[in-house]
């Protein structure tokens, strides 16, 4: 080392060395500076500083029955006589109450569009109310709502128990629009103009914050409000011993090299929180797309009259603008809350089958030869994959919907070549439009006035990948329609029907904007300020792109568009991923709680970049990441331009085999995963679930976020540390869990985790729930297309009473015909030694126009009593006990060649048709 020893340490170098020692904290500190904190935002500072106490807000008069159902009234602010804020209260069934406070229509407060489910209005139910002098009681089935008149307060009761109270601490605040005073110097700084770093926000409308406190009565854990790289349970941010933390922030940003365990908001925002405790679960959704801060208090402060004796968790929600539009989700179980929330914001999309298989991405597959070589690499190593992705470099100078023809001279032929193997391609389409006079999108958008305007009303110009760029105003339905058309085959030159899309940078990312995004005083459609809709921006763009693919596919090809930014309701639109993570073990670890948190907030179809976007994963890390990623709802490998190549076969053995196994595991499980996606689509329940969602009564599960469930039947205790030789495994419930490869059974140990050995890189603990039946397709193929006709294997994991049940959902995997009953939903039940296959579709709703020819090649029964005993014999017969047709069976390990003990009854070659009703009886002696 050339003379390094001679160097005297200057203060700067010492500081640097210290930083290396305290790397984590330092990284934290450096990052934190880039983001606006509560005390730097006047609206947050003002509201956060408020002391709890009597609120100045009161109900303005009697609540009236409103025209479309529900009640209406006004809220007044006693500090500002004459200001009357219209109030609306609506109920949607027993469990959902919406409370909306806004300003009179002339004031034009922004109300967030495109988030609520289209069918929500039709679910409005009548409310019975009873008024006394101080409060009004509303009855919603078994649940009740009490509106206190002065101060204005809302308490929710489930079965007589209070569960939620709004404005109990008097922090409700609604800053009405007002005239700019002549002398603004008398006002608090930052109210009419605000500077962050070098950016000045002109704030022409002045202060307009909306805030409130929400107390979750008897709650013990809080979850939700993604996206941030933290643990799943929300830690307190206020009232802590020692240092005060920043409140949680919801403000979609392009965060460069985010660190794990950071409370800063990332690319997306869902202002939805769930509170859980022994007495039940409740949720709150604040429909507001402005910048938002949320405090979670370490301990309750200020007594709430009438609720003094209750334990609770206090939260404080502070939004910069918009309106008060809050949905109370009354539970009482976590599943109920997710279902209620997705009733409000919509159920997740039913994805195409290919899109839940494995995706191979990199910034960038450079040219056609590269694409061909990667495609061939998978085939040469017999590793399945479904989608090959092209990042920004495939375009002509970052002009989306174009090709760099020096690298991709024959895009159509390339896509068709990939499609000939049943695979798909994805190209990136970002929201920044290159300001280039030769670029048709720019020309047209400029001519039509489709760009977002700056505060002076001119087209806003920012800086992004293409250089100087402008941004389409997706708040305008006309712009969205126009954008959607750009996806048509005749518009998007050299695209094909097997090409899908990817929207990155849609927070939006503006490299030279405040906090790398758009100025808040930019103007959208109808004069809406960017500050009002910021968190919605990504969703609008995502939605417009999805509409494009719908148009292209004549409304019968389910769109697939991956987005980075998201908001409440994104689950109705498509998939998201957790953005630019890093090839570090900590990022593998945090990917699980991040995805769980998204799922709790309704966004199921999500994944983290396998391998980590930045940096080079060591082969062990990459292998472990594939093993975890195989259970992510969205499973994609991705890497930064500067990283070394890391396609699955590049690390030699044992890595190639282990990564192949991981990917094949995903493919084998696809029938199950697809069924879980169908369940999500119907019910809103997440695909990847925290244990407490399924086992809400087991307090030991409440803080667990390293383990997770895929659907309800697969439990994963992932290995996410280097050289792990054991994992701590908690088995919820009272029924056994069967290790998927060996069939070894584990049962919960009285609320305690047990230690499971990890014998090597190939050891990855995943379990099937006792009481479940899972259909798999165990034959590896190139991609999902070639699996269509392959036979199923049924894995039956018996519970302690010898019973099990499972569903299998199948459709054509790509069209919307399933909405016209072109699908098959089968139920498998096992009881008293008898396996039955029957129709599970709602009556009159089965298999119109969809034939399922597939057979069952094997049935594996785990957990039969005395199966390991030499003296016992088993045989399987078709039909009843006296059935004559005997099926071949043997006691073997559940998976051939897995090294497990012979503990399963394997019924071979039954060749039963999945679509037909039949039964098999197991006779033991």
């Amino acid at each position, binding site marked *: 080392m050339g*003379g*390094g020893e001679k160097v005297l340490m200057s203060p700067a170098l010492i500081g640097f060395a210290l930083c290396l020692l*305290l790397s984590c904290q330092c990284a934290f500190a450096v990052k934190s500076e880039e983001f606006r904190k509560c005390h730097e935002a006047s609206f947050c500072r003002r509201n956060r500083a408020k002391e709890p106490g009597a609120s100045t807000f009161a109900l303005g008069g009697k609540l009236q029955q409103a025209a479309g159902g529900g009640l209406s009234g006004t809220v007044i602010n006693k500090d500002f006589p004459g200001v009357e804020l219209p109030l609306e209260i609506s109920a949607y069934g027993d469990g959902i109450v919406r409370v909306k406070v806004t300003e009179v229509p002339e004031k034009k407060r922004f109300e967030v569009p495109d988030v609520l489910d289209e069918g929500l209005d039709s679910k409005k139910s009548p409310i019975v109310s009873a008024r006394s002098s101080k409060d009004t009681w509303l009855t919603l089935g078994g649940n009740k709502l009490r509106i206190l008149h002065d101060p204005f307060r809302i308490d929710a009761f489930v079965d007589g128990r209070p569960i939620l109270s709004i404005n109990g601490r008097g922090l409700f605040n609604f800053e009405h629009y007002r005239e700019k005073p002549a002398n603004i110097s008398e006002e608090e700084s930052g109210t009419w103009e605000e500077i962050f770093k070098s*950016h000045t926000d002109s704030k022409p409308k002045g202060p307009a914050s909306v805030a409130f406190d929400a107390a979750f009565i008897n709650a013990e854990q809080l979850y939700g409000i993604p996206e941030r790289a933290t643990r799943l349970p929300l830690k307190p941010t206020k009232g802590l011993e020692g240092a005060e933390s920043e409140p949680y922030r919801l403000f979609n940003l392009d965060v460069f090299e985010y660190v794990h365990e950071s409370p800063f908001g990332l690319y997306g925002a869902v202002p939805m929180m769930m509170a859980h405790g022994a007495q039940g679960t409740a949720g709150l959704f604040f429909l507001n797309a402005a910048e938002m801060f949320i405090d979670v208090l370490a301990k309750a402060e200020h007594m709430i009259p009438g609720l003094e004796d209750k334990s609770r968790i206090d939260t404080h929600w502070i939004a910069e603008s918009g309106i008060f539009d809050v949905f109370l989700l009354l539970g009482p179980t976590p599943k109920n809350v997710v279902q209620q929330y997705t009733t409000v914001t919509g159920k997740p999309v039913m994805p195409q089958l290919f899109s839940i298989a494995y995706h191979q991405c990199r910034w960038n597959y450079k040219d056609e030869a590269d694409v061909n070589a990667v495609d061939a690499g998978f085939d040469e190593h017999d590793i399945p994959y479904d989608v090959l992705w092209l990042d920004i470099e495939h375009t002509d100078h970052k002009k989306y919907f174009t090709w760099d023809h020096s690298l991709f001279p024959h895009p159509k032929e390339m896509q068709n070549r990939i499609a000939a193997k049943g695979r798909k391609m994805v190209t990136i389409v970002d929201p920044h439009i290159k300001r280039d006079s030769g670029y048709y999108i720019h020309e047209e958008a400029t001519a039509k006035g489709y760009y977002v305007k700056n505060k002076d009303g001119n087209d806003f110009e920012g800086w992004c990948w293409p250089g100087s760029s402008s941004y389409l105003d997706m708040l305008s339905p006309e712009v969205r329609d126009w954008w959607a058309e750009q996806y048509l085959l005749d518009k998007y030159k050299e695209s094909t029907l097997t090409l899908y899309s990817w929207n990155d940078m849609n927070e939006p990312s503006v*490299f030279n904007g405040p906090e790398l995004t758009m100025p808040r005083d930019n103007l959208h459609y109808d004069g809406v300020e960017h500050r009002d809709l910021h968190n919605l921006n990504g969703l609008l763009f995502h939605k417009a792109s999805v509409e494009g693919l719908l148009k292209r596919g004549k409304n019968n090809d389910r769109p697939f568009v991956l987005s980075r930014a998201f908001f409440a309701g994104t689950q109705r639109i498509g998939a998201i991923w957790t953005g630019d993570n890093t090839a570090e073990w900590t990022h593998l670890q945090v990917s699980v709680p991040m995805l769980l948190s998204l799922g709790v907030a309704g966004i199921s179809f999500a994944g983290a970049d396998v391998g980590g976007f930045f940096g080079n994963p060591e082969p062990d890390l990459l292998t472990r990441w594939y093993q975890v990623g195989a259970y992510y709802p969205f499973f994609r490998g991705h890497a930064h331009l500067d990283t*070394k190549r890391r396609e699955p076969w590049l690390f030699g053995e044992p890595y190639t085999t282990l990564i192949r196994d991981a990917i094949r595991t995903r493919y084998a499980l696809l029938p199950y995963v697809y069924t879980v996606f169908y369940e999500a689509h119907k019910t809103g329940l997440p695909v990847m679930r925290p244990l407490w969602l399924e086992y809400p009564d087991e307090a030991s599960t409440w803080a667990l976020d390293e383990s997770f469930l895929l659907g309800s039947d697969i439990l994963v205790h992932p290995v996410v540390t280097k050289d792990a030789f054991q994992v701590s495994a908690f088995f919820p419930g009272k029924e056994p869990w069967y290790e998927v490869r060996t069939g070894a059974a584990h049962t919960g140990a009285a609320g305690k985790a047990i230690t499971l050995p990890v014998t090597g890189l190939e050891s990855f603990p995943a379990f099937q729930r006792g009481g479940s039946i899972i259909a798999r397709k165990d034959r590896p193929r190139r991609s999902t297309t070639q699996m269509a006709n392959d036979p199923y294997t049924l894995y039956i994991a018996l519970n302690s009473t010898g019973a099990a049940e499972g569903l299998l959902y199948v459709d054509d995997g790509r069209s919307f015909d399933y909405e016209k009953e072109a699908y098959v939903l089968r139920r498998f039940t096992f009881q008293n030694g008898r396996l039955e296959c029957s129709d599970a579709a709602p009556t009159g709703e089965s298999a119109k126009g969809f034939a399922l020819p597939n057979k069952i090649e094997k049935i594996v029964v785990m957990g039969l009593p005395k199966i390991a005993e030499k003296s016992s014999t088993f045989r399987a017969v078709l039909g009843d006990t006296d059935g004559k047709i005997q099926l071949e069976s043997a006691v073997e390990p559940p998976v*051939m060649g897995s090294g497990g003990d012979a503990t399963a009854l394997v019924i071979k*070659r039954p060749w039963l048709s999945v679509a037909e009703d039949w039964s098999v009886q197991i006779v033991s002696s």
Partner: protein
Amino acid sequence: MKQGAGFVSRVLPQSCCRQTASTRIYLLLSLVLLSHWMLAVDAISGRLPDVALRGVAPADLALYEADPLFCRDHSRKIAVSQLNDDFCDCPDGSDEPGTSACPDGRFYCRNKGYHPISIFSSRVNDGICDCCDGSDEWATPGACPNTCLQAGAAYRTQLSAEAAAYSEGHKVRTKYVAKAQGLRQQWESQLEKAKADKLKQEAKEKELKARKEAVEAAEKAQREWREQQEKAAKAAEPAAPEQPPALAPEGAPAPPVVPQEGGPEEGQSEGGEEAEAALEGTETEGGGAEEGEEAAPEVPPLGEEDAAAHAGQLSAEELGRRVASRWTHNEEAVGDVQLEAEQKLDQEGEDWAAEAREEAEQYGEVGGEELVEEGGETGGETGGETETAEVPATETGSLLASVTGFFRRVLPESVARLVVPGPPPHVQDSEVESVRAEWNVAQSKLTEFSSKVTDLETKLGRDYGPDDVFVALADECFEVPVKQYKYKVCMFGDATQEENGQSVRLGGWAGWLDNYSAFHFTNGQHCWNGPMRSLKVRLRCGPKNELSNINEPSRCEYTADLATPALCTDEATKAVKEELASAERIAKELKDEL
């Protein structure tokens, strides 16, 4: 990707499927047996039904003829009815050679008229034609038309072209081998001579050195005497300031020396690595920004973490570009260079953007050590000011670029002042001058001879591969233009990428790889946030030396192919010819059959 690798894995005609290298070896071996096994299969089909033997390779027939039947790994006994019954009974997949039932099985297709291949059983009945005879899609007869005749014809055309190329290359190679011997002898005699020259020159230099020292001693004595005289005279005058303020070469901050053209010296590039390592540390650990600022208040804080903070001092575009460079580590890459040029403020600014990367890179390589080391050495004397020079070492890449840009814009005067050497000693005595000049000439000549000796010794000590064949190419360089670049690979020397006369070193010779079928160059110029550049050159036989297929699969890790007669060995040439002969024989037999 197949073009690159010699004999065994040549490109197959497009009409056929892709195969792994091992499959290819296998099929080539079995090629010879082709005509025989076809008969064999027909002969034994008596005992086993055709279906049972579907997908069985001829070499494996014995396994399936056995009675009783076992899985290949002998893990279990199976019945004949279990062969190809579409249910996997053997853990090794051997009971299902003709179906997709077993995960890791193999299906063998005869491809009559072409040549047999063995495919993964995952390809059987998957709707994609993998075998030219269509046998892998047996469940849907007619789905895959037999294309083996065309495939075979294309294959033979390709083989004969290849055989011709091999023959031609082989002739050249023979010449290379012959030439190698001569060249070696030539080098040896050159070495002898150089050694002798060197010895002689050593004596000469020694003598001149002695003379020079003698006259210098005399000159020194004369000077000292004169100085004493002057001192005595000065003592009479009042005291003057100790140091003239304009000239402070020792106490002044270490200048970030503008790197010179040409390769960095050994020590310097090592220092550069250190600086780079420090930078990387900063980036991943994310530290040091505040310290950096504190320590160097005079430097405009242009670090990425401050990008937003100091945006007011930058044009909006510059800010965007810098933020983008966090992802790309290359400010040029972001935005349209053309457009940028149009909009650029002034000449200086325009240059800055274009130069930033190279400059910064060169500082990373060359300047880094100087910055840190000199700053450190002089730190004691000049305090705070010195640390200005250290900032780059504690900041991230884009900051380094900014700071170096800053230095260029702000400091040139002082830098110029500092690097200009003091006036040369004023020599009066013409004798001193001429002796010194003579000695200088002798010295440089000696260096010349010494390096010649070293060069020749190195040359002779090298590994030139089998038959010493690469001796013939010892001094050769190969070039290929790709877009705006020219790639140049010098055997046993350097590999470079040139653009508009600017050369980037991809690496220095680092030896042979993969049994002389490739060589590589390592430790090239460092990449931002990436490795040191490197290049791997894969070799194959060709009638002349031709560099092609330059690629950069991972950032700054290049690959290329070199066709060269040196690889057209006897064996390889013979094998191609045999393969061609065998392919022709098969075609003829088929024709006769028809």
